[in-house]
């Protein structure tokens, strides 16, 4: 088992680095790109606090999506909320158990089922609704297949053929100290857990180079995160200010 364990150990190291550095770089790019004009979709909040509340409603309740399409909202909400529950449940592999985690375990377990149901609904739309079929690229289908794969393999372990959870915990617990090189910290020799973990690693790797960027990206959407106060407070981007400072009309005329 050691060879596979070492492979997986390295894979997760790589996947984690790619995820963290990749998403970090994207966030830095979004952060550093100016929003030269005030473009909130109005009616928009007139205070910063109002914007936080608007963003909260978008991220937690998918408010705009709810207005837009109730069926899509249902599947989307089911999938995402289940995903969070599942993720919380999974934290037991990385941190010690606490009361909250113990309490969450059963929810997380059944959330696996609703997550897959939500995903199935989302995937069905890609075949059944002609408009959604038209806009779907192969990657959009594969993304859902990948998540369903993760969900199904997870459910298998949860409800059908249990795997050695303590062993898995030992594997991830030893990640930082490269414990997977040793005889103790390996993974259980169980094909389902290996498939599950492989798919998760793939998900982590593609996160920063795919549409999954919507998760950090939504917080940077100017139509949703800007305060509606252009008359009260002057908003100018650095590059536009440079035009003013140098008294020029066109950016091409600016001296660097």
């Amino acid at each position, binding site marked *: 088992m050691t060879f596979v364990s070492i492979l997986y150990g390295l894979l997760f190291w790589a996947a984690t680095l790619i995820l963290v550095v990749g998403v970090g770089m994207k966030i830095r790019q979004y952060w550093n790109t100016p929003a030269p004009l005030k473009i909130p979709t109005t*009616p928009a909040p007139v205070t910063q606090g109002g914007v936080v509340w608007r963003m909260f409603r978008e991220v937690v309740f998918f408010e705009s999506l709810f207005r837009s399409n109730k069926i899509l909202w249902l599947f989307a909400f089911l999938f995402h909320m289940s995903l969070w529950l599942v993720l919380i449940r999974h934290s037991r592999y990385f941190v010690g158990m606490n009361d909250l985690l113990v309490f969450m375990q059963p929810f997380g377990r059944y959330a696996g089922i609703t997550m897959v149901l939500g995903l199935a609904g989302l995937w069905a739309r890609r075949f059944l609704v002609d408009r959604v079929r038209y806009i779907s690229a192969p*990657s959009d289908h594969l993304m859902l297949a990948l998540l369903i794969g993760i969900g199904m393999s997870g459910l298998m372990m949860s409800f059908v053929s249990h795997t050695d959870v303590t062993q898995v915990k030992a594997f991830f617990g030893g990640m930082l100290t490269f414990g997977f090189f040793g005889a103790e910290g390996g993974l259980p020799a169980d094909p389902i857990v290996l498939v599950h973990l492989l798919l998760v690693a793939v998900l982590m790797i593609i996160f920063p180079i795919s*549409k999954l960027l919507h998760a950090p990206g939504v917080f940077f959407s100017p139509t949703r995160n800007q305060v509606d106060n252009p*008359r009260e407070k002057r908003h100018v981007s650095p590059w536009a200010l440079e035009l003013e400072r140098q008294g020029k009309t066109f950016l091409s005329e600016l001296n660097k």
Partner: protein
Amino acid sequence: MADYEIPKLTGEGYTEVPAVKEDTMKGSGPFIAKADFQKAMGFPTDFDAVGDLVPNWKERALEKMADLKSRYRSLQVYLDICVKCGACTDKCHYFIGTSDAKNMPVARQDLLRKVYRRYFTFAGKYFPKLVGATDLTEEVIKDWYNYYHQCSQCRRCSVFCPYGIDTAEISMAAREILDHIGYGSKYNNEIIGKVFKIGNNLGLPGMALADTLEGLEEDVEMDTGIKVRYPLDEEGSEILLVTPSADFFAEPHIDGLIGYGKVFHETGVTWTFSSHASEAANFGMFIGSYENMRRVSMRIREAAIKLKVKRIVFGECGHAWRVAYSFLNTLAGPFDFLDQRYPIPQHILEYTVGELEKGSLTIDKSENDDKVLTFHDSCNVARGSRMGNYPGGQFEIPRKVIKAVCNHFVDMPADTIHDATFCCGGGGGLLTDDLMELRVKGIQPRAEALKHVTTHYGVTHMAAICAICKSQFTKVLPYYGFTMDQIVSVHQLVSNAIILQRQVSVQARPDEDEDDDD
């Protein structure tokens, strides 16, 4: 009348979402601008003939894309984060009216996104087929030109997208790229050129404007017996009024303009137009050119300084109000030389509603009793700006004013008003005869909603607060059996109902007072 089918209205108030069809609106797009027009706006002119691309167009287009996405967070984020959920697909009036797949907002974005992915993302560089990335070809440029001129930048899609992805931002960027490779739109760029040269979209020079306004004063005097002033370039006035130039002559725009004058007259404030900034419209926004939008805006600042006014008020116009409300302070501010007690700039409806609330206008509502009104929320006012000091004031204030001057008012169905309003079909720089088919089809959802209230609630007139909406409606609604005079300006209704109390304008010209014979 036309070689395409005009959609039939049901009067049910809503339009069925059509089945997706491909290429029903494939074409060459609106007329392309000549080199002269491009030059006036600082765009490259090294293309041989109209319709040719510049040399190295591919590299230059990609360079521009890279430049824009580094300067606009909206563009960079929106190109990345769309999940293809399809929530926006049935929200665009052009898709509803034409059923062309590429008029679904996400599909419209994808025209640019697939190129972005191909040249700027890992997945698109190495697995183009998988993520739907494609090379930039002349074919793609043609599609850009065609379909980015089938977007009125109305932002309805942005309201319904879970991330607020605004297709208007994408089409503005696309038009800016196209302008840099020889594919400018004639309609927009010619008009912006006129503003730079003459001061307004119509190319109406100062002298002609003075004549028009004088004629107007005579008309109003004939009508009311009172010499209401429509002053031009009167230095030291309190208010500079900036209004779309269509207000100076088009119907029903001019009736609204008469109304602005009457309101100012009654409230005893001094005001003036400016021949230097005789245009509220700012087509720089439509073509996504910050630089040109700023150039147009600066004229208003210059006029305000030159005329030593204390306040700036804007007339009825949708995109002009978006640029004024949302961008003017950014583009041409800071306005520290104006009176800070008033909003800068202020909408004429904000002014009028304030006066109505104060009771300084004498109103006889029965003057509008021959009409049952409904109100069209203009996209740019509804989703791109505000009136008043609370969110949603842009919906309430116009209705408040209408209800204060009319006895009969009915709203159209809820999913066609407020921030879910449907575009008139002619916004965003598409109000040109070379896009007639698009305009006729794009008006369908609005026409359907109007039909509903005319059939079931006896509505006779639709009021609007945008020069483009008014022009589009008067021209295109007749295709659906409505008549031109069913479209009215909000200040036209005010004008009808106002009973003038002030006999002599505070801006009366002393030399004329003698030969006034009333």
